């Protein structure tokens, strides 16, 4: 199993459009992907789960992936967060 930790820098947090993009990106991979914020862990492909994480701007999230394309999946999710969900600011 592989894992990474990233910080949400997007203004609205892992909500709204960023949450949708995050879930849609995770759904492209066959690996099982879990995301943890604080004490809550959820399926990274579940929008309802990701919203209930309540990850605001500045939140540290941990992403774990297991499966054939785990490495690619983590790389894609990391890029998405680091590129601030494709927004300049």
């Amino acid at each position, binding site marked *: 199993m592989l894992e990474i930790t990233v910080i949400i820098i997007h203004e609205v947090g892992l*909500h*709204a459009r960023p949450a*949708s993009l995050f879930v849609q990106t995770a759904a492209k991979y066959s690996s099982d992907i879990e995301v943890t914020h604080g004490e809550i862990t959820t*399926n990274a492909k579940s929008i*309802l*789960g990701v919203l*209930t994480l309540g990850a*605001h*701007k*500045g939140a540290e999230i941990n992403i774990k992936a297991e499966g054939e394309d785990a490495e690619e999946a983590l790389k894609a999710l990391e890029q998405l967060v680091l590129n601030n969900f494709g927004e300049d600011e």
Partner: protein
Amino acid sequence: MKSISGIPASYGIAIGSAFVFDRAEIVIETYSIKDPAAEWKRFEEAREKTHHQLDEAYQKTKDDCGEEAAEIFNAQKLMLEDPELINTVKNQVEKDLTNIESALYKTAESYAQQLEAINDEYLSARALDIRDVSSRCLRNLLGTTDSPAAALKIPSIIVARDLTPSDTVLLDKDFVLGFCTAEGGSTSHTAILARGLGLPAVVGVGTAIEDIQNGEELVLDGDAGVIVINPDQGALEEFSSRQEKFYKLQAEAEAITHQPAVTTDGHQVEIVANIGNVEGVQTALDAGAEGVGLLRSEFLYLERSSLPSEEEQYQNYKTIADAFGDKPVILRSLDVGGDKDIPYIDMPAETNPFLGVRAIRLCLSRPELFKPQLRAALRAGYGNNLKLMFPMVATVDDVLKTREVLEECRGELKNEGFDVADEMDIGIMIEIPSAAIMADQLSEVVDFFSIGTNDLSQYTLAADRTNAQVAQIASGFQPAVFRLIKGVIDAAHSNGKWVGLCGEMAGELLAIPILLGLGLDEFSMNPPAIPFAKQLIRSISFKHAQQVAQTALDLRSDTEIREYIQKVIPEVNIG
């Protein structure tokens, strides 16, 4: 005639009949099934149909009200395809042999309740979304398609407990005059939609909404957050003329809002905005703000579980200060304690929190809290016009101690090789009577003052503004408060320093002539008030304002002052 009130969510006045949006409840029965595969097939068909409907709703809403309001339907699609939701539903159908309607309803409801339990306005709105999309799918399963929206045939004010995106997409916008809902806040779907359409809205009215019957005549005041049911002839005429006058004045005020605030005899003052986050920047610029007179830094500390880092603060302050270029942006250091609490900052309970360890007192006693903010501000102020201001200063010593910590931070940053602002102006808020009285001494150790009238009034009158029984006494229009303000302005001017005001009074048209006459240099207010303030200042003379202020100081009560201003400066009466 009766009036009820709620949260003003979108400006303007609407007059028309009520269209009570009564969504028929869907009745969900629970029973055992024999063929789970057939049941699952029904669900897949209903989901597919729901998808098509959501795509259509997206397109229609995008055309009518823009992309922001439409985006919600894409989020709803993702919710309906949520693998966790589908798994839970599938288990109930296949293992418990529960009918699909009951399984879907219970699962969606459980997610909605989890989202509501987080107690966040944004997530509560998502609870509404999951309920909305599951009801749509349930209606498809049950074959019921009626929407009350189809009955809207004449221009009306929409009245509802809450409006879901699916409800609003079906409303014929040509027949909507305004919105009134029992639930929701200023960022609810209804509020966003109303602002997108430029229609007035009052939300969060509560159970009082049940007083409104379908077809009743209503007046909806989106500025004050008031709804008048069955207005009498007098009220109707009053609101019609206010509506007409308001639109005319608004158009005139907005037309001049990017021009400077200069009196008819050439005296210019600065009109700036109070903002609370990065999103406020554009609103302030659009409203004609000449800078920011109060940037509340609390936004970075709220709704989270740990302190924001220096880096995060730096990024935010810099983004805002850079957006205004060489126009001033005044950052106020963390102002918590009193009635403002932050759970992860350990603040012991106090008998008198308003007289306790709040604002600068808290910061000075907690360097681990204060220093990252000062460092972030010094770094962010490089290459723009960021200024720093400290709240709740009571003594000259408070300023000297604060300056010491600030210089320590500046030294550290330089050693670490950071670019820092060398010439950053430092100001204080004048909100404690001792600071107002000592303004002559204080103006020697700071670059500017900003008067906080909300606190200054409550401390001067010894009346808690959060206690409804005495809040009236804590009025900024008390002659005692104006006399203190005059003393502060005179003391600062004789030391060559300028004075601003960032309390609610700065944007109150009744107060502006007096403050102007007393010599106030900068007025900082919420952006929507800016066009009206500029227009008022441009319509009166400084000389007249000076005479009016002098007379007002000699009156005996806040009521006498208000009545006097209304009489001698008729331009203050816009509503």
